């Protein structure tokens, strides 16, 4: 499935902004990811062709940056920061509780901890680096939004309710 006309136009507009078309690759991949949720081999090739770059440039860049996804991700992706400031105020705990509330089995050790709901609509990750929101730790990132000050059970309940709404929306959109 190729990219929508809107995204393709937006990419063309990016290319026009820079003296070197290679510079447009990163913003263009972000645009493509916004539409598709992740960057498949075909999407990478499509973006590279659209800009006029070798496919290898696209795959190198996409795999270099952790926030560009080259493997399929769930529509709702929750990334808990477990770095020092967050960890000191209970981020590990918050992640574990969120998982429990969502009935998610977490795998992996510190640094690779992750899991997903049975319907694959929500993913939990404890793998990311500091998001620069240490002053409102603990925190997690959901899509483009920051959820901060996740200290009490109430905070987590609210978070989970929001996640479920997002999942339901994604599900109905898919149908």
């Amino acid at each position, binding site marked *: 499935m190729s990219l929508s006309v809107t995204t393709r136009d937006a990419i063309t507009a990016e290319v026009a902004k820079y003296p070197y078309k290679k510079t447009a690759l990163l913003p263009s991949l972000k645009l493509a990811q916004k539409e598709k949720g992740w960057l498949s*081999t075909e999407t*990478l*090739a499509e973006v*590279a062709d659209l800009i006029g770059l*070798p*496919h*290898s*440039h*696209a*795959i*190198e860049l996409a*795999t*270099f*940056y952790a926030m560009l996804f080259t493997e399929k991700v769930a529509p709702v992706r929750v990334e808990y920061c477990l770095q020092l400031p967050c960890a000191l105020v209970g981020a590990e705990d918050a992640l574990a509780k969120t998982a429990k509330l969502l009935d998610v089995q977490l795998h992996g050790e510190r640094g690779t901890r992750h899991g997903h709901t049975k319907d694959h609509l929500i993913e939990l990750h404890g793998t990311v680096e500091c998001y620069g929101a240490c002053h409102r730790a603990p925190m997690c990132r959901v899509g483009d939004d920051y959820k901060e000050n996740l200290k009490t059970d109430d905070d987590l309940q609210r978070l989970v309710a929001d996640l479920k709404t997002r999942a339901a929306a994604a599900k109905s959109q898919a149908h």
Partner: protein
Amino acid sequence: MTTTASEKKDSPAASSASAAQAAPPSDTVTLTIDGQKVTAKKGTLLVEAARAVKNEIPVFCYHDKLKPVGACRMCLVEIEKMPRLQTACTTPVAEGMVVKTKSDMATGGQNATIALLLANHPLDCPVCDKGGECPLQDNTFAHGVGTSKFEEEKRHKDKAFELSENIVLDRERCILCYRCVRFHDEVPGDRALAVIDRGSHGEIGLASGEQYTSPFQGNVVDICPVGALTSRHYRFRSRPWDLKSQAGIAADDPTGSNVWIDTRDGRVLRLRPRENVDVNDAWIADATRWGTLPAERSERLAQPLVRKGGKLVAVTWFEGLRAAAALVRNHNTGVVATPALTNEAYGVLAEGGLGDAVSVWPRIAATSPQGTLAGLSSSKSVVVVGCDPWSEIPMLAIAVRRALVPFTRDGIATGGGGKLVVIAAENGLARDSAAWLKASGADLARAVADLCDALEGKGGSDAAKKAAAQLTVRPSSLVMGPAFAHEPGNAALVKRLQAALGVVDDKGACAGFSGAVDRYTNARGARELLGDKAALDAASAAGVLGRAGAGALDTVIVVGDVPHCAGFPVDGLGKARAVWLTASLPKDASTKAGAVPDVVDVVLPLAHVYEQGGAFTTLDGRHQGFDAAGIPPSVPGAGPDERAKADWYALALLAAELGRVTPHDLKGLRAVLSTKHAFARIPLNRNKTRTELTVV
């Protein structure tokens, strides 16, 4: 002009100012490396300057034919007045620089780099193909501490990952020097490999799930400084210390790639590029590397075959030659020679008079190209018509690309800046072309005429005008496919295009390259040595096949095998009987159905090119001699005479059998030929090379 150490100590600024006043502006600088004064051209990298005085600074990622990247930190050196260690592979020389490559600080840095690289390296040298010729082993031995403090578990990755049918990648061994990625990026420009992921997760892979189809894959095996990239054709077949390397010339490449032929007990096991900056630099095409390896010696025909009572019977050379001579003596005889024989063989044919006529088959261009491939590589305007060098003669594509994109020599970018216009159906250099006017068959002539119109300012289509606008700078070159150049109707058009491009100046000299490129190894040698005597088109009425087909010949001697087309011109022979000199038959050819065509009465087995001496002439007229590397197939238990023979030797023996005396050894034969032919005066095996490949 050199500044003294005391001057520099007093005031660096003053000393450089006085140096500038005292010396006329020169393009060299003088520096000190390990106490030794070195004068080098401005821009020279430290690692090269040190190499020039035989001071080898250890490297992994640096390769003198690729852009320096400073990725591995192996080349750390101490430079006075600089606070930290510097990478010698990215630091250009400067006036008065004082460099220490063996100080405690420098050695410490080198030790640490080795320790870090080895932390995650699997150290599986006993089962690694590279063992014994591995820069990682060598550098560890020379610059490592010999022990490891790393006690954690090593990282695990793919072990024998098949990148293609030719190449296996061991991702644990890779030290991420990026040489392989840079090679594809810079030399053929096909960006075939990519670095996937980052940091310790980084690994070499293919771009976006694509296939690894580059025709230059084998070169990454040569330049990989560890055993991460290995050749599936050579894996686990030998250890480097059991191999004997002999200088040779590629058996299939009309540009004359220089190779090392690595043999073990006389068997040719592998080919590697032999550095020659004027020919193949340090690269060869995969077709040469793997496509020209001889079949197993014991599996090939070693004895002559003679047809007796309808059946082919193996005989001694004595009998075989007698039977062949009987077919020639008192019979109208013609010779068909392929354009892949050695010059010595053509020499015997030209001098020895084996038949009334000699023809070259398959057909080759009637005239040789003007200019040189070096001229092609330094052209500013290049036009390719009716061929695709990339798929037909890959090393020619590299020569063309050098005119377009800067390449690296001794660490410094050079050349490039030319424009390429291609008029053909296929174009492997599409990404580097200024214009590609797609055309094939009869349309080629039309497209060329269109481009001529545009070049001459007499109109032409918009596409042609755009293309012509790219072709204004001289020198210029013209590369033509033989089929287009052969067409008699195109002769005037070719002249017109040459004139419009200005490939030849008023005095008739060609600074670039111009002509038709045959894809056969020694088409130029055949043309130059047989030209006056032979019809270059065997199938024409005057050619040997034409005459045989018309019933005018009783016997045809066919010499050689032809890669890229049917191996034997069965259809053209009419009622004539044939003698076939060939290197392509299997041991059981006499009984194997279809191996030997019915018209053949005598088969004389030839040695493979890599098992014989001789000389080839490249398509731009460079004569390159070579000695035998491997041992040809022989009959077990029989005398030394009972083996497949060099092409020129078999022909000389046949000439002798017919009473036309020709020297029987290469030296004597060359001495006779040398009075008339320049190639025979070039010593075998003495081609100009700068150095052996220094990295592997």
